[in-house]
């Protein structure tokens, strides 16, 4: 317990009051910031190895734990994707690959990458590490709950992976788990596999809710003095909005997973109509499969933004720092994030244009979907306008950002194809969709994750990553990934349906054999290139250049901790006080090209800095 810290805090709060001097008749102090509303948070400091590194309540350690576990599952997802591509490019090359296995790999790859990798990595990993640091909090508001959150995630991953070893194997019903086929014979893993999947998802949602409450309340109620919402880095805004979406969207997933489990275990008929299977009428009757699709996509579409919004936020910060220029149109960026988040609850059925739902829904959802394109486009403009007239450091971090812009714009525009109801009809359920969502919520967020790793590794580890390896890593990944997914759109134009184990007996599809082999080869190379990063991290931990404080000359609070890497409690004796937004780069008249958030106005009176 840190009783002594509390006392320090009180002294500090008092001193700032005396400075304010509003009532004493002296001219108001331009550095005045309201005193702290709340007493300093008291934290539980671990002393043993177990409480310090395993069941740890420090958000930073939890963040790293999330990061490592998510990466581990991500690597499993990567290996599954290799196996799939092997089958698609070179059918029969892997002797054990049956249709059952193929569909199981497709399903597990999808679910792992979307939920257990990207969601956990962005919100659990970056969220935990960065939120308290960037908002100037000592830790998350409920450290104990935060710890439980991670271990729930751990159990969820365990249950998920356990499904590989049960009779029948993991579920092979596609990551959307559509009933009736998800729980009927004829789909691999329709026994234990699907039950474990549902249980794992329910655990994940429960665990995530605990973490999510922490992120939200920390951002809303535990910011440091002077840190207004409009002075938060866009990273925090992205993670914040994504967490709100998660809190409101995961319930639909929870409910649909629960109902499907009941359909499977108790033979209820929520989603199951009368079904004839092998000449026998099953005991089900009266349910509607489309209801599941509505519930699933009521979760599923916000989920897309749960992955995308943190990426938007992080990339904004990286671009701004490394082009030494303020983010262009900060307010617009914040509003765009919030509006995208809010609208994402009104667009879900654009995944269902050809599902047989009420035909009139097409008008409603096409309109709402295309409205989202406007704030999204504004964000893109603002990123490139931030580059404009900047002073761009073309280091590894910036390369990832540029890669993100290219892939994201590409994937965003194919999104307009699929969101516009008529255009979607010929393209839906084809490889165009696969190419689109991999580009926009696979590769683009991955580019950001990589950029963020290169950017924040010096903070976490105190050492720099190798730039040379980083550049190799970037170019192989970017060019490789682009050459996987760009041509894949054309498979969709031809009309090749997705989720085909084999496709070569149709004449117009046969023409794509060469392309599939090319795509598969690229996929192997890109996947392998990711091990460059792991090598880079392992080596740099030992022999990397010491980073020192604030190696990128950034403004936001996480670089301004008294120690690097920051310790438990983040700020030593005194919480930072914030006077400005985190984007005061290249201010005319300033000595250096950056003004950290903690620099009081009195120190920069001679500059032309704008009040934020």
């Amino acid at each position, binding site marked *: 317990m840190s009783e002594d810290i509390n006392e320090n805090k009180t002294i500090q709060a008092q001193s700032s009051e005396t400075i304010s001097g509003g009532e004493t008749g002296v001219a108001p102090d331009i550095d005045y910031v309201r005193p702290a509303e709340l*007493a300093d948070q008291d934290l539980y400091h671990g002393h043993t190895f177990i409480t310090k590194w395993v069941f740890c309540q420090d958000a930073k350690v939890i963040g790293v734990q999330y990061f490592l576990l998510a990466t581990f599952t991500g690597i499993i997802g990567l290996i599954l994707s290799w196996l799939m591509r092997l089958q698609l490019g070179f059918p029969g090359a892997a002797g054990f690959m049956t249709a059952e296995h193929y569909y199981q790999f497709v399903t597990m790859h999808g679910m792992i990458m979307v939920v257990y990798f990207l969601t956990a990595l962005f919100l659990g990993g970056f969220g935990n590490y960065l939120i308290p640091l960037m908002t100037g909090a000592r830790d998350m508001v409920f450290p104990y709950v935060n710890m439980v959150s991670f271990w729930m995630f751990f159990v969820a991953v365990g249950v998920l992976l356990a499904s590989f070893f049960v009779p029948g194997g993991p579920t092979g019903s596609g990551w959307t788990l559509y009933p009736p086929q998800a729980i009927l014979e004829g789909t691999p893993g329709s026994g234990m596999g699907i039950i474990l999947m549902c249980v794992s998802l329910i655990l994940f949602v429960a665990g995530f809710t605990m973490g999510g409450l922490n992120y939200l309340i920390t951002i809303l109620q535990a910011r440091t003095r002077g840190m207004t919402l409009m002075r938060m880095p866009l990273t925090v805004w992205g993670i914040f909005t994504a967490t709100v979406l998660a809190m409101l969207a995961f319930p639909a997933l929870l409910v649909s997973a629960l109902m499907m489990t009941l359909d499977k275990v108790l033979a209820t008929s929520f989603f199951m109509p009368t079904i004839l299977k092998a000449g026998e009428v099953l005991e089900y009757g009266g349910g509607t499969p489309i209801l599941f699709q*509505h519930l699933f996509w009521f979760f599923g579409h916000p989920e897309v933004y749960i992955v995308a919004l943190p990426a938007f936020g992080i990339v904004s910060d990286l671009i701004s720092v490394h082009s030494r220029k303020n983010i262009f149109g900060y307010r617009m960026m914040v509003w765009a994030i919030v509006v995208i988040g809010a609208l994402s*609850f*009104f667009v879900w*059925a654009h995944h269902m244009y050809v599902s047989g*739902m009420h035909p009139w*829904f097409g008008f409603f959802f096409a309109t709402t979907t295309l409205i989202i394109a406007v704030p999204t486009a504004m964000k893109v403009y603002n990123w490139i306008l931030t580059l404009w007239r900047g002073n761009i450091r073309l280091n590894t971090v910036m390369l990832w950002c540029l890669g993100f812009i290219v892939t994201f714009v590409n994937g965003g525009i194919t999104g307009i194809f699929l969101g516009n109801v008529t255009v979607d009809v010929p393209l839906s359920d084809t490889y165009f969709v696969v190419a689109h969502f991999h580009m926009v919520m696979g590769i683009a967020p991955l580019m950001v994750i990589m950029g963020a790793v290169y950017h924040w590794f010096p903070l976490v580890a105190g050492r720099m990553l190798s730039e040379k390896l980083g550049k190799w890593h970037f170019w192989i990944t970017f060019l490789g990934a682009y050459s996987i997914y760009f041509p894949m759109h054309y498979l969709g134009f031809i009309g090749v349906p997705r989720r085909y184990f084999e496709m070569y007996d149709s004449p117009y599809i046969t023409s794509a054999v060469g392309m599939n082999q090319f795509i598969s080869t690229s996929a192997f190379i890109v996947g392998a290139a990711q091990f460059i990063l792991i090598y880079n991290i392992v080596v740099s931990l030992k022999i990397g250049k010491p980073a020192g404080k604030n190696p990128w000359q950034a403004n936001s609070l996480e670089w301004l901790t008294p120690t690097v890497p920051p310790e438990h409690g983040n700020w030593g004796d005194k919480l930072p006080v914030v006077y400005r937004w985190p984007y005061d780069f290249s201010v005319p008249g300033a000595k250096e090209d950056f003004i950290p958030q903690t620099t009081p106005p009195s120190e920069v009176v001679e500059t032309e800095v704008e009040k934020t």
Partner: protein
Amino acid sequence: MDEIKKEQTTTHKIGIYLWIWGLLFVLSFFSYMVDWYQFQGLLRWSLILIFMFLKAGLIMAFFMHLFWERYALVNVLLWPMTAIACFVGLMVAEGKYTLFSRLFYFFVEGGQ
């Protein structure tokens, strides 16, 4: 722990709670009466919904203190309900459409 720097919190008079309590009983009784007298159709629906929303409103506003909370909290809590409302509205339409197709195609009276 965050102890809020404020004066001893003032609490509400007990009367307001008792009032709301009583009202909730009365409203519940009324909604029960809707069933008792077997009102049907639009009347039944509007009565059910009115009593339901009144009760929900009273509980939220007074028992959960939302009436006295600041607008920042109230708005954060209530706006997401528009997503629910949208979901409800669309699912009503969807349910009707499914029922319509089923009656239309699977029952002889409507045969195509």
